[in-house]
């Protein structure tokens, strides 16, 4: 099994505050990996070290290594902008660009890499919207405002926008936290499909979601990695007491 991402003692700081403490993990390619833990456990921060978004936060810096396909993404000479086109990210709240049409939203990440012909862009937009299972709902109004879509549609639009530049890895930061059950279900089904082409790391505070969608699960607590393993094992026979307490709902 190919390892897509490997982290080696990643410590992430905001100024002097340590949010993530020495987390070493391996994420296999074409799998869904869930990060769980109570609020403030550092799971989002850890996720943001994987595409170098953490360093965009005020005071954000890290020590340790993050390897993507064996290459250190923090090595000097690595262009963070190019990296982020390989490691896409979807956020908790849907963030369609309000001044752009549906089409332009999806094309945004492709256009930034250089000029494309209209037909090439159309192809990419259609492919991405199909991958995000949104095509049938929006194909007749591609040039309308993205704000007219429902919350769940907006989130799938953001996923399509992230998929358009064909990243290798998809990072999702609580992507269904602001959606209704129906929207949540659609996104979860979508993750199952996307797994064949992408490596997915999803942060969720919903344990059932982690159990439903992921192949491996990592439990983080107070910035440290407590337990990591195949989802089934972690949820049925956790080896750590804290993990067991958390997944059985005794804290967090």
């Amino acid at each position, binding site marked *: 099994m190919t390892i897509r991402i490997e982290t080696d003692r990643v410590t992430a700081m905001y100024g002097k505050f340590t949010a993530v403490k020495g987390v070493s993990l391996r994420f296999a390619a074409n799998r869904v990996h869930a990060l769980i833990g109570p609020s403030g456990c550092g799971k989002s921060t850890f996720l943001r070290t994987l595409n170098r*978004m953490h360093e965009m936060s005020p005071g954000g810096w890290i020590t340790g290594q993050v390897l993507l396909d064996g290459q250190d993404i923090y090595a000097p000479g690595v262009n963070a902008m190019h990296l*982020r086109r390989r490691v896409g990210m979807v956020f908790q709240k849907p*963030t369609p660009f309000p001044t752009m049409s549906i089409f332009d939203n999806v094309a945004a990440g492709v256009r930034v890499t250089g000029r494309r012909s209209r037909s090439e862009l159309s192809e990419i937009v259609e492919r991405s919207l199909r991958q995000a299972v949104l095509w049938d709902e929006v194909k007749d109004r591609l040039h309308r405002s993205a*704000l007219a879509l429902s919350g769940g549609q907006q989130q799938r639009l953001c996923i399509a926008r992230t998929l358009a530049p064909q990243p290798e890895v998809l990072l999702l930061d609580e992507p269904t936290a602001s959606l209704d059950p129906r929207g949540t279900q659609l996104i979860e089904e979508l993750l199952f499909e996307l797994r064949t082409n992408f490596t997915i790391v999803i942060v969720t505070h919903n344990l059932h979601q982690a159990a439903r969608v992921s192949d491996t699960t990592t439990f983080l607590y107070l910035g440290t990695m407590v337990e990591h393993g195949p989802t089934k094992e972690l949820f049925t026979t956790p080896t750590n007491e804290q993990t067991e307490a958390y997944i059985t709902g005794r804290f967090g």
Partner: protein
Amino acid sequence: MVVVLASAVVVAVVPLVFILGTLIIKGAGSLNAMFFVAAAAPAGQTGGGVGHAIVGTLVIVGMACLIGLPFGIGAGIYAAEYPGTRLAVGCRFVADVMSGTPSIVVGVVAWAWIVARQGHFSAYAGSVALAMLMIPMVMRTTEEMIKLVPHSLREAALALGYPRWRATLTVVLRTALPGIVTGTLLAVARIAGETAPLLFTALGNQYFSLDVSRPMAALPLVVFTYATGPYQEWHRLAWATALVLIIVVLVLSLAARLATRQRYPRS
């Protein structure tokens, strides 16, 4: 309680109604096509118009925008993008002080800088004075409007691999644009009605002129000259000019309102 607040509203609205009413009663009668097209009549003669002042106001305010908008918007973007830097804090402080500065002081400064040195009044000296009034207003509005754009939008753009400058220009600034346009129009409406900064700079002119290095007419100056003049005829023209001026300002304010309304159309 409601009665007290409602009467406060009435008292607040009465002056506006009164101003408009007086201007319409005293000025509307003098408005006709010639009034908008013709230049001033020689002293003592009846008739004549403010066409030269309308053109003058457009030129002076237009040039003030050309000078003021790039600096105001640029400084606003900087202050919003790098909020903690010394330059941004200083710039914000200066802008706050400047917006409290009496406009006549700005006029005097422009006079000392440009008119006194060159030895003659000029339209562009007036534009510089108005631009100085405009910059702090535009800067603060731009900054506030950019700050209103959710941080998540900027992050989304950065996560797509946008360079920072491009995220700012194509996502953040474009989202903030309606608000910036509104603020700009309000600033234009405000400076279009300023008299004091033009008194020692653009000075005023009886005739049509497009030469920006010479004195030029402007609507507020015409009101001032006619209203303080000795002739009955001038007083009549002053009322009519004041009405034109307030219509110009109201139209700009309404345009600003419309620009705001288009914000967040279907959210």
